[in-house]
């Protein structure tokens, strides 16, 4: 380890841990994008009316089709006797699968109430697998607010799938994290251009495309919140490729470089594969960086994407992060991004929303990244805000989205200028 602290960015910056009211979603929210990614999967939350209402509200607008998620709402009689709750669950699942024969993967998703009453969904999944295999594979994971924050739901979901993946000795690269199909295709073609053709994705679009894994599997994360999934893969013998996360031109290049190094891709091949999209990405980011350069940034904790995004905004867009909040800071996964993040911002893990709002008011940043519950109240006080949830619901990875990602942050500033009548 070098003693030259500045060159290590925020690696040694102390992290302040806060406890208090958290203004974050629970892990159930991940279902909103996971059910679109896995086209033959159904997510059945075993929970309360609150869970159903959260999913409906977090989706913002209702999805114009029968959704592939639902909530088995616990009623008073289910609380009285757990044996009956299991019978009821089996009945609801049987009815659901009879109505939706296209479903091949069923996720039983635990919630706060199901955890508190200790409804054993692992055993329920086992029992239901006995009834519905091989046509339907039943998994279980917890998306409860007492166990998970927002994007941790995806981590829990993917981690639940890993132990059941078939074994294989094939030397394949596994790209981990739910990406929009178009982004996944771009990732695949970048890797193909580098000569890496044995590439699999987790989650897969369909059950039949699920990867097999083993000691020869190398995997790389596309999302910073997949710590449990990474551990589960390592338990199966797969080895992780450490890299910064593929946000922005630099992030994408370093991510691809990390893969290239493992696979012995020559510099010439790497440049041939990346030169053109790199140039495009840099050009697209530059257009937005003009608006963002020199502006200060405050991030409320939300998706665990805060550290890599702050790195992108600081290094590629010229912003000055003042405070970066994140629900959890996993140093193992975040190391490369922390090292790149310029020294300066306060790093906060956890949340005490009232204390944070006080600090925010004192700092008066030019741009605030926060959840939907805080955005309009802060706008009303004159701050420019970016809703954090869009960073999860929008394609933002790799070269072709680098400009769009920068645009998500520059738009609130450009809009404010427009409405003031002094458009830049």
């Amino acid at each position, binding site marked *: 380890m070098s003693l030259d602290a500045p060159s290590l960015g925020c690696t040694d910056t102390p992290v302040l841990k806060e406890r208090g*009211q*958290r*203004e*974050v*979603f*629970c892990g*159930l*929210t991940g279902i909103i994008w996971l059910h679109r990614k896995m086209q033959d999967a159904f997510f*059945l939350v*075993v929970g*309360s*009316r*609150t869970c*159903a*209402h*959260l999913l*409906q*509200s*977090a989706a*913002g*607008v*209702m999805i*114009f089709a*029968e*959704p592939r998620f*639902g*909530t*088995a*709402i*616990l*009623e*008073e009689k*289910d*609380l009285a006797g757990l044996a009956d*709750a299991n019978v*009821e*669950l089996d*009945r*609801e699942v049987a*009815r659901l699968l009879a109505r939706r024969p296209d479903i091949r993967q069923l996720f039983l998703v635990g919630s*706060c*109430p199901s*955890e*508190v*009453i200790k409804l054993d969904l692992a055993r329920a999944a086992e029992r239901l697998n006995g009834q519905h295999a091989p046509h339907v594979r039943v998994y279980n994971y917890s998306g*409860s*607010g*007492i*166990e998970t*924050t927002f994007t941790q739901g995806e981590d829990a979901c993917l981690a639940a799938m890993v132990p059941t993946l078939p074994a294989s000795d094939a030397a394949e690269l596994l790209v981990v994290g739910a990406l929009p199909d178009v982004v996944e295709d771009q990732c695949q073609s970048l890797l193909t251009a580098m000569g890496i053709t044995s590439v699999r994705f987790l989650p897969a679009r369909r059950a039949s495309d699920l990867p097999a894994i083993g000691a020869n599997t190398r995997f790389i994360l596309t999302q910073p919140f997949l710590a449990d999934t990474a551990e589960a893969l390592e338990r199966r013998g797969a080895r992780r490729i450490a890299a910064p996360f593929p946000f922005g031109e630099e992030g994408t290049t370093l991510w691809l470089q990390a893969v290239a190094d493992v696979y012995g891709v020559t510099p010439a091949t790497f440049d041939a594969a990346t030169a053109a999209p790199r140039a495009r990405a840099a050009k697209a980011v530059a257009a937005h960086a003009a608006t963002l350069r020199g502006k200060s940034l405050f991030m409320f904790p939300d998706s665990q994407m805060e550290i890599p995004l702050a790195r992108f905004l600081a290094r590629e867009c010229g912003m000055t992060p003042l405070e970066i909040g994140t629900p959890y800071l996993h140093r193992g996964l975040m190391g490369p991004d922390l090292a790149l993040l310029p020294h300066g911002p306060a790093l906060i893990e956890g949340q005490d929303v*009232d204390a944070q709002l006080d600090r925010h008011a004192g700092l008066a940043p030019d741009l605030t990244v926060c*959840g*939907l*519950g*805080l*955005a*309009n*109240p802060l*706008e*009303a006080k004159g701050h420019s805000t970016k809703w954090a949830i869009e960073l999860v619901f929008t394609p933002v990875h790799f070269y072709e989205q680098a400009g769009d990602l920068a645009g998500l942050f520059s738009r609130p500033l450009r809009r404010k200028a427009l409405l003031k009548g002094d458009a830049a």
Partner: protein
Amino acid sequence: MKLTLWTYEGPPHVGAMRVATAMKGVHLVLHAPQGDTYADLLFTMIERRDHRPPVTFTTFQASDLGADTATLFKNAARDAHARFKPQALIVGASCTAELIQDDPGGLAKAIGLDCPVIALDLPSYSRKETFGADETFHALVRALAVPMARTEAITCNLLGATALGFRHRDDVTEITRLLAQMGVTVNVCAPLGATPDDLKRLGQAHFNVLLYPETGESAARLLEKTCGQPFTKVVPIGVGATRDFLAEVAAITGLSAQVDETGLRQPWWSASVDSTYLTGKRVFLFGDATHVIAAARVAAREIGFTVVGMGCYNREQARALRSAAALYGVTPLITDDYLEVEAAIAAATPELILGTQMERHIGKRLGIPCAVISAPVHVQDFPARYSPQMGWEGANVLFDTWVHPLVMGLEEHLLTMFREDFEFHDAAGASHHGHKATARVETPEPVKLPEVTTKGTIRWLPDAERELKKIPFFVRNTARRNTESYAVARGVEAISIDTLYEAKAHYAR
């Protein structure tokens, strides 16, 4: 356990939040796990509120469950009281906290705060959002309102308006204006805009106006008992109901019900000849019982539609809805299962749906136009413009909003006459709607038509099937259904062009 895909109502603590957020000077401390804070965005995003809801969540996590969640609650309540200095503190539990049985009411009282503490009992596993709002408002009134001398001038309280209500903001303005014309001043409007101190002086009003029975009836009944205040029973949505409401106020106060009707345009808009095309249009209504019952009266008596189905999602008001349904000779639908609502709408083949955000989606799927009349609502249902449902302006708004989704009068005739024109065909949609008009793809006459189309034991002969397609889209399903029923009733197995037109004559209205 009941499988739910979409819900009409949130849990009861969201109802409590609707009351707390509507008011000023109160703070709600909810014992709730991390994640339940999602409910803040309902208010800040859907309603575009510029303040955070006055709600503190304890946001306990798994590690707290083994430790001391009661202390966590007490600290949260103490901190919230110190930071926000409310005139009254409301405390309650969300669904998960209900299971751990920490007794927020007892804990909050134990820490000895210098403001009234009102504990809520919100049974999350048996009741829902509307109940939670009604119960919260009732608890606040019970704790704060006391009998007192009446004001000198004739005054009333407006009860039931909450945050996230369907057009509550504008209804309050409209009804306040109407009452002022009669000589009645509003003493307190609550929960919307009221402080706990305002609730303490509810008792000085001469009577109460119950705007929304869903969220204000328990409080109105309580005030009738404790403060001897009568309350109005008619909800003034529509011209007839507004006149009945004014008469009711006149009976209570002895004032004249005659008020200025200058701004009321709906009766003439409805009587003018362009509106004849609205006659007998089949309409299906679904939403909260109050809005559905009122809308049915407007639809049937003031616009001249035919009510072909109506229902509500809130069982608390089922009885009122059943009696209203009897007036129109339709079977009431009381359910909170949107799949059931969709099936009922599909079966009734209405030409217009008056519903909630959920029915708007059902209408999209079934190709039936829809106007929104009730919560649950979407960001679009909080317009920037003044847009009440109640009073004279409300009646004008109802006419405009309900007629807009339909194909307009003369256009309907033109579509019927020129429906064979490839540019002016029916699938091009109504001319005043935003989507792009598309020319019909002209397919050459098929070489060989399928011999027959069958539906059950009924067959459509090819000629009849072609003729059916010439019928404009907005009545085609009804024509198909009527013809098939007609054929079944007469034992006709193959539907010919003659059968189609015989059925048309039979069902002529």
